[in-house]
């Protein structure tokens, strides 16, 4: 049996110093298998987004051990390391309105990774990735303000895919989207994972999204993982921690009338 693709051991991230020291992530360990979708759930400030930023290399100030595949993640970001990481891990951000450069067309945004890595056949790569996210070639020369939220998120996903990474880190990818668009994007993410054989870590506060996309999840609070469980266990109510139960039931709505009348 293969070792897990993503291995995080005793990850610690702090901000500030002295009496203003905040331990955003305080000793977190987990593994993710190849092809899995692993969920990270928690309320704001629990550290879930901080883990993604450390894993992706955006924040090099962390302690512990992390590895993706055969590569042990380091702290000194040399040019070669930065390029190699870019072809290994990519990220999709929460706010479609902030994740695309307002002055760059879609074409420019997708060309950036290609020209940074000196890849060939740029036109073909761009076309292929646009088709994969369901955008027609007509969108190539549009500016972000001319696109809807869902379209922008598709462009963000296309940008993440263009270097053919093995891992996608998804930071609340549908929280800022309308309900009807959310379903499209979730379906798109599922399909891409199947086709490209990707591994996802999905951060969300929405248990519906987590249950739909993930096989396993970890519940976080104040920088630590309270428990890890499978989605079937979550849905069946077999959670070990009272906090997990509280979160799960709270996300079902103000009371549970909707569920009750639906099953009636």
């Amino acid at each position: 049996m293969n070792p897990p693709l993503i291995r995080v051991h005793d990850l610690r991230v702090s901000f500030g110093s002295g009496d203003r020291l905040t331990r955003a992530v305080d000793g977190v360990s987990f593994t993710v298998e190849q092809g899995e979708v692993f969920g990270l759930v928690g309320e704001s400030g629990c550290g879930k987004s901080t883990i993604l930023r450390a894993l992706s290399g955006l924040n090099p100030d962390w302690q512990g051990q992390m590895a993706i595949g055969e590569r042990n993640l380091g702290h000194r970001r040399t040019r070669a390391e930065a390029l190699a990481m870019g072809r290994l891990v990519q990220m999709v951000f929460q706010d479609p309105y902030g994740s695309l450069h307002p002055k760059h067309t879609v074409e420019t945004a997708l060309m950036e990774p290609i020209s940074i890595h000196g890849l060939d056949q740029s036109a073909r790569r761009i076309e292929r990735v646009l088709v994969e996210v369901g955008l027609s070639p007509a969108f190539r020369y549009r500016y972000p303000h001319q696109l809807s939220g869902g379209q922008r998120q598709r462009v963000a996903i296309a940008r993440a895919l263009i270097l053919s990474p093995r891992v996608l880190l998804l930071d609340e990818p549908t929280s800022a989207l309308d309900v009807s668009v959310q379903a499209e994007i979730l379906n798109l993410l599922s399909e891409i994972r199947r086709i490209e054989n990707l591994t996802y870590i999905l951060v969300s506060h929405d248990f519906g999204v987590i249950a739909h996309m993930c096989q396993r999840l970890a519940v976080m609070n104040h920088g630590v993982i309270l428990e890890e469980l499978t989605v079937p266990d979550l849905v069946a109510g077999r959670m070990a921690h009272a906090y997990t139960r509280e979160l799960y039931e709270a996300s079902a709505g103000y009371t549970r009338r909707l569920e009750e009348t639906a099953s009636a």
Partner: protein
Amino acid sequence: MSDIAARGGVRTWLLAESVTSPAQARAQKFYLGWRRFASNPLALIGLGIVVVLILMAIFAPLLATHDPYAQSLDRRLLAPSAAHWLGTDELGRDIFSRIIYGSRITLMIVLLVALIAAPLGLLIGTVAGYVGGWTDVALMRTTDVFLSFPGLILALAFVAALGSGLENAIIAIALTAWPPIARLARAETLTVRRADYIAAVRLAGASPLRIIIRHVMPICIPSVIIRITLNMAGIILTAAGLGFLGLGAQPPSPEWGAMLSTGRQYMLGSWWLAAMPGLAILIVSLGFNLLGDALRDVLDPRG
């Protein structure tokens, strides 16, 4: 593109829904911006004044009625008339022609200062803002030193050190014009730095230099353009001030500030010597202010 152009002309191409080339995308963006700009009457007045200034400078030989340097001591201090539209000065030179030729000097000052100060300020501000740390501290403290002097005083100091003359005046003014631009660019960079689109391009492996030039600067450029346009009025006035003090363009050069200075002595008897260049300075400053305000409405991303 050819068949679209044939079907409806350039306007259809500019408003087309489906865009087929980067050039078309940029042209469309410019066209929409222009329409917004042109819907503001004050914007058009400001632009008009600046355009008139430029045309005056280019076509000066055609527009001037007399040689601006030709002295005629028997035609001194003549009031505005059909022969001399704006009168003559203390050496009998036609004021109208001197104003026309003076526009070349004004335009040269304004352009050169903008071309020196804006890129310099932009570079220093974005590098300080993005790199942070000791680079930021060093660059910003240097900026602070320049900022702490009133513009005219600093320009005076430089001209005193470098010697008087138009070229040195331009360098001196440029050295006082870049610090506010640097401050502005740095402030914008600090906000932009935390944006997700910067994080995304870092994940692609971009170097800091690439990020600064291709991603941060394009966001800062509109604010810099607006700021420098609004500062034009101040630049013109500083140049006029230096000329007034005899430290800018030297006589017999028809620089408006110098003209204003000599006109002072004759103000009570022959008001037109001071009023005409003064009016010219006023109108051009107003024009740049209106233009800058209008540009802010069009270019400001928060608008």
